[in-house]
């Protein structure tokens, strides 16, 4: 197993005491594509970031098991964590406008990721960056490598992010709403590119999104989270068999072209889902 999570709980101190944002979540992941779906605040991003230990310092994390390829994340030293982060797992965030460093060129940021933990010259790193840009299907990689984040579009920025995170040849890619900031057409391109790269390299993928149909289309398995808990786990092709009322509610809210509804239903939330 690449990732093993048992009873992960993440809490934050508030004026009213500790408040749990993730409650006893359990997950397993091999070299497969796992989708995590849930609304804002459902704990999906926190769960993924806990895996790389990239949570805010105030977060209190506890778990029976939190392992990445056998490495215990909770007890790993910062040095071991750097080996996981830099080398074996990458993280792509929502908006490249904020997740790329504004004062470094795209090429320099990719080269930095590539050269980290490798013994290579500056020139080799720069060449590797251009090669990686070509791999994410950027047409003029040499020119884009010299551009700053504010000079490139959102879709291109996300390609740069993907190139940067794939630079160390990781085994796992965590994509945290990688397309929410992009136009619909660009979204599909980026997802296809990511799926293609992940499949070809035999990597694991965690795709976090609030778009259930989109995730089920690209992933092997889907986990639905609500209020910090996993409420349902499904094979991607088996959405129709969803049993939890929250998942069913989500699916029923979707408009379809084949069976248009005059009025989309509003989800009725049951307080019992919280317990």
């Amino acid at each position: 197993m690449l990732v093993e999570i048992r009873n992960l709980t993440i809490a934050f101190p508030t004026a009213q005491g500790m408040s749990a944002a993730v409650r006893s979540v359990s997950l397993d992941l091999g070299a497969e594509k796992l989708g995590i779906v849930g609304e804002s605040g459902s704990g999906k991003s926190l769960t993924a970031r806990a895996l790389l230990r990239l949570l805010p310092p105030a977060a209190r994390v506890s778990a029976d098991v939190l392992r990445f390829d056998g490495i215990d994340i909770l007890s790993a030293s910062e040095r071991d964590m750097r080996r996981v982060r830099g080398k074996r797992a990458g993280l792509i965030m929502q908006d490249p406008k904020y997740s790329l460093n504004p004062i470094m060129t795209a090429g320099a940021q990719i080269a930095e990721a590539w050269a980290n933990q490798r013994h290579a010259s500056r020139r080799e790193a720069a060449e590797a960056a251009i090669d990686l840009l070509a791999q994410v299907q950027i047409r003029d990689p040499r020119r884009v490598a010299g551009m700053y984040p504010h000079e490139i579009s959102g879709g291109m920025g996300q390609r740069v992010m993907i190139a940067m995170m794939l630079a160390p040849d990781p085994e796992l890619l965590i994509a945290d709403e990688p397309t929410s900031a992009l136009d619909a057409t660009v979204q599909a391109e980026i997802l296809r590119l990511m799926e293609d790269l992940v499949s070809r390299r035999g990597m694991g993928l965690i795709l976090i999104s609030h778009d259930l149909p989109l995730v089920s289309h690209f992933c092997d398995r889907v986990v639905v989270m609500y209020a910090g808990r996993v409420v349902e786990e499904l094979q991607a092709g088996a959405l129709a068999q969803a049993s939890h009322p929250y998942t069913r509610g989500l699916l029923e809210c979707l408009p379809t072209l084949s069976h248009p509804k005059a009025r989309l239903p509003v989800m009725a939330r049951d307080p019992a889902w919280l317990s």
Partner: protein
Amino acid sequence: MRSARWGRMAGTLSGLVVTLFGLVLVTFLIGRVMPIDPVIAIVGDHAPDDVVARVRGELGLDRPLYVQFAIYLGLLLQGDLGRSVMTSNTVVEDIARYFPATIELASVAIVIATVLGVPLGVLAAVRQGSRLDQAIRVLCLAGHSIPIFLLALLSLLVFYATLGWVPGTGRADVGYEGMDPVVTGFLLIDTLLAGDMDPFKDAAWHLVQPAGVLAYFSMAYIARMTRAFMLDALAGEYVITARAKGLSAVRVIWRHAFGNIAVRLVTVLALTYAGLLEGAVVTETVFSWPGLGQYLTVSLLNADMNAVLGATLVVGLIYMALNLLADVAYRLMDPRVS
């Protein structure tokens, strides 16, 4: 691209000229509307009326204000700031004599303040909320809120009068004064040029205390600003990206977060430096430091208007020059302001 850059530079320069003209006009007007009669300052209270009238005519003070301003502007363009009544030197000579002392003091102070303040600010931000952060905050709060004259006097009391670690006031011991030829006006450089180690050490020791007091004061401000900028930068998503790349903490903090605030910090440093150059009037007075601030104060008290106008103009120029420098640094360091 190139022509756009030149166009912007031309715009900046013409802006400077306008600002400069405004500065001259305002200082000139303030000088003229002040309820001080420069004629009486020269001839004294009891001079006969015809003498007063004659001197007034010689100074051109009987002419309309705009004519006076035109004359002043004309002389200014030739680099003539008039003659100081108090020292009977030209104001340009006076400033050339006093200003190096201030530049020397301010430069040493800003270097100390930067070297200490920036890392302290970064450290406080990285360890936000820790005891270290608290300690740095208290240190800075003290530096920022204790009036500088009190700080200077306390320093004299403790380090000079009680402990005897540093010499007292002035730029050099009487014995060394005027020993080496004045080349640059900077005592540290002049003594080194003369190849004399003793006067150099003496000058350096005299500098330690006033520079230290000014540095503490400035450091407090620089550290606070650095901390605030860094907290802002560290919360950025690109910092998470940098960490996700597996970079070392040092690289994440200094290359990624600090790299993004360096530009803003340069502006803070430039303005702090300008503030120090303006003549830390109070500090120079307490330490009998013969700098521009002291020159300005004494000239003002003696109604020596040419000297006051000249010194004020120089201070204004310094501000403008450093602002321009910060602007240039901004363009060089931030790719978004191409």
